């Protein structure tokens, strides 16, 4: 803040002359309200979470409290239910992200071509993404998955099969709902990627006699790679945090079959009131997210470099 004499650190081109302290703050001023607001509402609570994770704290025992070192971390990492939640989170996220990515790619390729009513189809396609997740979960639970009245069973019953979806295939049931909601998201990103291909290059490939498959392999796919990475990473970051569908459809069950990390922490904090352990689990989740996030930032950053 006493930066009067230090050189301007802005990387965006040389400053014509040294800025005065007032000018510096004048430039930075517009950023501050938003920046401070976000710090106050996200970073400070997170620091408190870190603090709680070292405390013996239970909301039902007011006498509890005091520093317990790494005891909460030990309790959480040694808890088989926590490890089960980690496994479920990985399965749910990987399943939903890969399924929606593959479907999204197929749909993006279909919608990249001109056909009658393309705008209408795109509008129909993105609607699942817009439906309030809680409403979507209820819709699937009652109208699609119901063992007696569900539409899915009605569709497969001519083949002599009836399934109690949520009870027999709890993880799959959640994955299908998530894939239904997130395929449009993947489709939109990949469609943006396809449509940002320079037409001259595609034209040149055609003139050179490259077939559609060859063009896809040697031109479209390399171009699309960055968009696939972005879709994969953003999808992972959003889907790892899934809470609504699990809360509404399975309540983490049957047993612990669909308890993922967000739902596990929710149970620890708001059902068992084990604040210390819930906080420790939260910190572990953030540490894991950080690994994905660093990678995500690199990918976004590389897209962003091209603009400047």
């Amino acid at each position, binding site marked *: 803040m006493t930066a009067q004499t230090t050189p301007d650190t*802005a990387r965006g081109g040389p400053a014509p002359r040294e800025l005065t302290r007032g000018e510096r703050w004048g430039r930075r001023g517009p950023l501050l309200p938003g920046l401070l607001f976000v710090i106050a509402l996200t970073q400070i609570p997170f620091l408190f979470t870190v603090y709680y994770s070292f405390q013996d704290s239970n909301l039902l025992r007011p006498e509890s409290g005091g520093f317990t070192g790494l005891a909460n971390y030990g309790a959480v990492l040694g808890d088989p239910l926590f490890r089960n939640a980690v496994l479920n989170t990985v399965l749910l996220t990987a399943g939903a992200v890969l399924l929606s990515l593959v479907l999204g790619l197929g749909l993006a390729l279909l919608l990249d071509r001109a056909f009658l009513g393309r705008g209408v189809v795109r509008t129909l396609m993105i609607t699942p993404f817009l439906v309030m997740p809680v409403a*979507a979960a*209820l819709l699937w639970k009652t109208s699609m998955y119901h063992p007696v009245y569900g539409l899915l069973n009605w569709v497969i019953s001519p083949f002599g099969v009836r399934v109690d979806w949520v009870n027999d295939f709890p993880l799959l049931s959640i994955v299908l709902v998530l894939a239904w909601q997130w395929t449009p998201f993947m489709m939109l990103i990949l469609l943006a990627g396809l449509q940002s291909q320079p037409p001259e290059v595609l034209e040149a490939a055609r003139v050179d006699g490259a077939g559609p498959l060859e063009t896809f392999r040697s031109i479209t796919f390399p171009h699309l790679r960055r968009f696939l990475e972005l879709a994969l990473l953003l999808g992972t970051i959003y889907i790892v945090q899934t809470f609504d569908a699990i809360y509404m459809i399975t309540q983490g069950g049957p047993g612990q079959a669909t308890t993922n990390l967000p739902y596990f922490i*929710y149970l620890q904090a708001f059902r068992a009131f084990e604040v210390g352990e819930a906080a420790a689990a939260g910190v572990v989740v953030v540490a894991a997210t950080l690994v994905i996030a660093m990678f995500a930032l690199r990918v976004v950053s590389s897209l962003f470099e091209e603009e400047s």
Partner: protein
Amino acid sequence: MGPGFGLGLLAWVVGVLFFFPVLWMFLTGFKQESQASTDPPTFWFEPTLDQYAAVLGRDFVPYLLNSLQASVLSTALAIVLAVPAAYALSLVRIPKWRDSLFFFLSTKLLPPVAMILPLYVIARNLGALDDVRTLTLVYTAMNMPIAVWMIRSFLVELPEEVLEAARMDGAGRIREMRSVILPMIAPGLAATALICFIFAWNEFFFAVNLTASQASTVPVFLVGFISGEGLFWARLSAASTMAALPVIIAGWAAQRWLVRGLSLGAIK
């Protein structure tokens, strides 16, 4: 025609398949309860508004008002805070602007579960639990990265000459903003606002954990239906339709910009 026609048809079939559950929810809201859960499903029926009347009669309105207040106010606040921030991070070369920009993005990567406990305890100690204003502030913070990144991406695209011309005319910062920049990015601001509104309206995790009865929003209202599962499908569908409709319409209107918001402005 040939293969091209077939692929177009395939796109239509998949599009309709994806849309069908939403259509089914919409249709079920106009059925009688006895027609809502039948085996085989009922496709032809006399539509009725009974379920909508019943939902609206069942205290739905306060939840709707809470949702509206939290979504609209948090959107407005996010835009008001994000426009100057995005301005500082694009058209003004402030020191370390890149770091600040990525800081905003990184808050979006922080899982809500990592913040909910302190937010709950702080709100409880301040007597601000079950208060729409608390939810409004949380939603504003949740939407700030999206708003900053999106608005920034619109500002970066403004033609250099226009900004030069405004400066030559001797327009000050504020006047330049008000009479040149804001009118030019108005459509972008509208799209950003719609996307912030979508996220706030659909949000469930903070709503269910930070509210109890007074400040509960529409998603929390829908939770009330799981206890009586299977009993009131038609009514549930009417309620779900009303809950989802504002965002569906907003999303259809903003679809050109959806991808920019969802990818935090990384893709245009």
